C-alpha cells in the first residue's frame, strides 16, 4: 500500500531489496531447470543457485559444512524436522519461557511419543540461564523473543551445553540477519528466510552441526542415488526430497548477499538506533505501557507496547488505518505473553527493519501520539 509505514519486519521483512526481487524473477524467467536433476545447463544453473545460497549463508552466519544447510519452507518446518528427527522416547528437552508455537506445538505433539519437555532455569528475561543449564537431551531457545525482543546469550549457553553434552538448538528466526551472534557451539540452527535474511516467504533453512544426524523428515526423489529405495547417505541430498523452491532460494541468496555487503554490525546498529527512538519516546509517555527489556541493545529490533485503556486490536487497527503496518495479538507466542503479563489480550508490536528510516519512525510516533490522545 502506498504511503504505508511498514513496521512489521519481525513478521516478514518489507520492502525487499531490489536484488532479491530481481533474483526471484530472473530465476523464473531464465532458469527453469530443477537443481540436481540432470547435468543440463538449466538444471546446472538451478543447482548453482542452491549452492551459492548455501555458501553465502555459511559465510554470513559463520557455519562450517554448508552442505549441512537444509532448505525448508520456513523456520517452523526446520524446527519440526529437528525436534521430531532428534528426540526419541524417554528424551527430555528444556526450553525458554518465550518460545513460539513452532517450538511448543511440535514438543507437545512429541509428548504422545514419550518425549518430555519443561522450562530450563530462567534468567530475568525468561531465557535459559547459562549458569544453570539442565542435563537434558536438548536445550532449545529462541535466539530472541518475537514478543519481548529479549536476546539469548547463545555463546554462553552453547559453551555450557557443549560442556554438559546437551544438544543446543537455536530458533534464530528473529536474529539471523539482524545481528551478529556466535554460532560456534550451536548444534542445530533454525532460520526463517523471509524475515531479517530478506528473502521471500516460503523459504527457510535448518543447519545441523557435523555429528548431529536427524531422521529423515521426508523421503522422495533427490535426483541422486535413484536406484535405491533409501535416501542418500550424504548431505544435503539426504534431507532435501522433492523439487526445491529454486526462485525462493535465489531470493534468499540475494538477501544474504545484500547483508554480507552491508555487514551485520551495521544492520544491528541501525535497528538499535530506530528502536532507541521508539523506546525513549514511549518510556516518557504515561499513556503507553512499554514492556521490558528497556535497553535497545538488550533486545532484537522490535518493541511491544499497549496504549492504556485501549484494546491492542483496536490500537493496531487504528494505526493500520492511519498507514502504520504493525502486528497485534499473541504473535503465535502465548507463553511469551504469559511471561510478559499480557496474556490473553496480547500487545501491539512494532519492528523496524534494515529498510526502515528514522523519518518513518518519527512519523509513526506522531501518529501514535494522536491515537493515544483519542483513547
Amino acid at each position, binding site marked *: 500500500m502506498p504511503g504505508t509505514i511498514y513496521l512489521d519486519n519481525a513478521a516478514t521483512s518489507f520492502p525487499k531489496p531490489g536484488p532479491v526481487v530481481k533474483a526471484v524473477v530472473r530465476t523464473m524467467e531464465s532458469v527453469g531447470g530443477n537443481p540436481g536433476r*540432470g547435468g543440463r545447463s538449466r538444471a546446472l544453473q538451478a543447482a548453482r543457485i542452491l549452492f551459492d545460497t548455501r555458501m553465502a549463508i555459511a559465510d554470513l552466519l559463520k557455519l562450517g559444512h554448508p552442505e549441512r544447510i537444509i532448505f525448508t519452507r520456513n523456520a517452523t518446518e526446520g524446527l519440526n524436522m529437528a525436534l521430531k528427527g532428534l528426540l526419541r522416547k524417554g528424551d527430555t528437552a528444556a526450553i525458554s519461557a518465550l518460545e513460539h508455537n513452532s517450538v511448543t506445538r511440535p514438543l507437545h505433539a512429541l509428548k504422545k511419543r514419550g518425549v518430555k519437555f519443561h522450562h530450563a532455569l530462567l534468567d530475568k528475561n525468561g531465557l535459559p540461564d547459562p549458569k544453570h543449564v539442565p542435563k537434558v537431551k536438548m536445550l532449545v531457545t529462541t535466539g530472541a523473543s518475537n514478543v519481548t525482543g529479549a536476546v539469548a546469550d547463545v555463546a554462553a549457553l552453547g559453551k555450557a551445553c557443549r560442556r554438559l553434552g546437551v544438544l543446543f538448538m537455536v530458533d534464530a528466526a528473529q536474529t539471523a540477519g539482524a545481528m551478529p551472534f556466535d554460532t560456534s557451539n550451536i548444534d542445530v540452527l533454525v532460520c526463517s528466510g523471509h524475515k531479517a535474511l530478506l528473502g521471500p516467504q516460503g523459504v527457510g533453512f535448518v543447519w545441523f552441526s557435523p555429528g548431529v544426524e536427524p531422521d529423515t523428515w521426508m523421503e522422495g526423489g533427490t*535426483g541422486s542415488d535413484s536406484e535405491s529405495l533409501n535416501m542418500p547417505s550424504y548431505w544435503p541430498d539426504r534431507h532435501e526430497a522433492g523439487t526445491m523452491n529454486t526462485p525462493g532460494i535465489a531470493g534468499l541468496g540475494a538477501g544474504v548477499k545484500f547483508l554480507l555487503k552491508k555487514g551485520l554490525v551495521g544492520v544491528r546498529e541501525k535497528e538499535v538506533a530506530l528502536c532507541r527512538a521508539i523506546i525513549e519516546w514511549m518510556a516518557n509517555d504515561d499513556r503507553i505501557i512499554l514492556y521490558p527489556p528497556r535497553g535497545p541493545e538488550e533486545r532484537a529490533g522490535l518493541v511491544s507496547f499497549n496504549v492504556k485503556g485501549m484494546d491492542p486490536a483496536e490500537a493496531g487497527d487504528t494505526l493500520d488505518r492511519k498507514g502504520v503496518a504493525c502486528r497485534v495479538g499473541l504473535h503465535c507466542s502465548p507463553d511469551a505473553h504469559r511471561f510478559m503479563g499480557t496474556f490473553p489480550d496480547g500487545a501491539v508490536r512494532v519492528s523496524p527493519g534494515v529498510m526502515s528510516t528514522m523519518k518513518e519512525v518519527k512519523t509513526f510516533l506522531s501518529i501514535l501520539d494522536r491515537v493515544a490522545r483519542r483513547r
Partner: protein
Amino acid sequence: MSVGELIAVFISTHETLRAERAFREARIKVRATVKPRKIGSNCQMAITFPEGKLAEIKNIVKKDGFDLVGFYRKREEGDWAEV
C-alpha cells in the same frame, strides 16, 4: 568432452560445485558437465579438466578434503577407465 581431457566425479552435486569453485580459484580451466551414465556414481554431474592439470587437481582434492569418486578418461572403445 575433448581429447586430452579427463573428468572428475564427486559424491554429490554440492561437492561437485564446491570442487569446481576451488579449481577455478586455482585458475584451472574446468567445466561442469553431465556425468556419463556408464560411470558408476550417484551424482549426475562431473567436472572436465585438461589432463595436464591432473596432479594439481589431485593436490587440491587432497588439501580441501573433497569427497571424490574418481578421475576418468574416455577410451577409444567408448567406455571409461579410471585414472
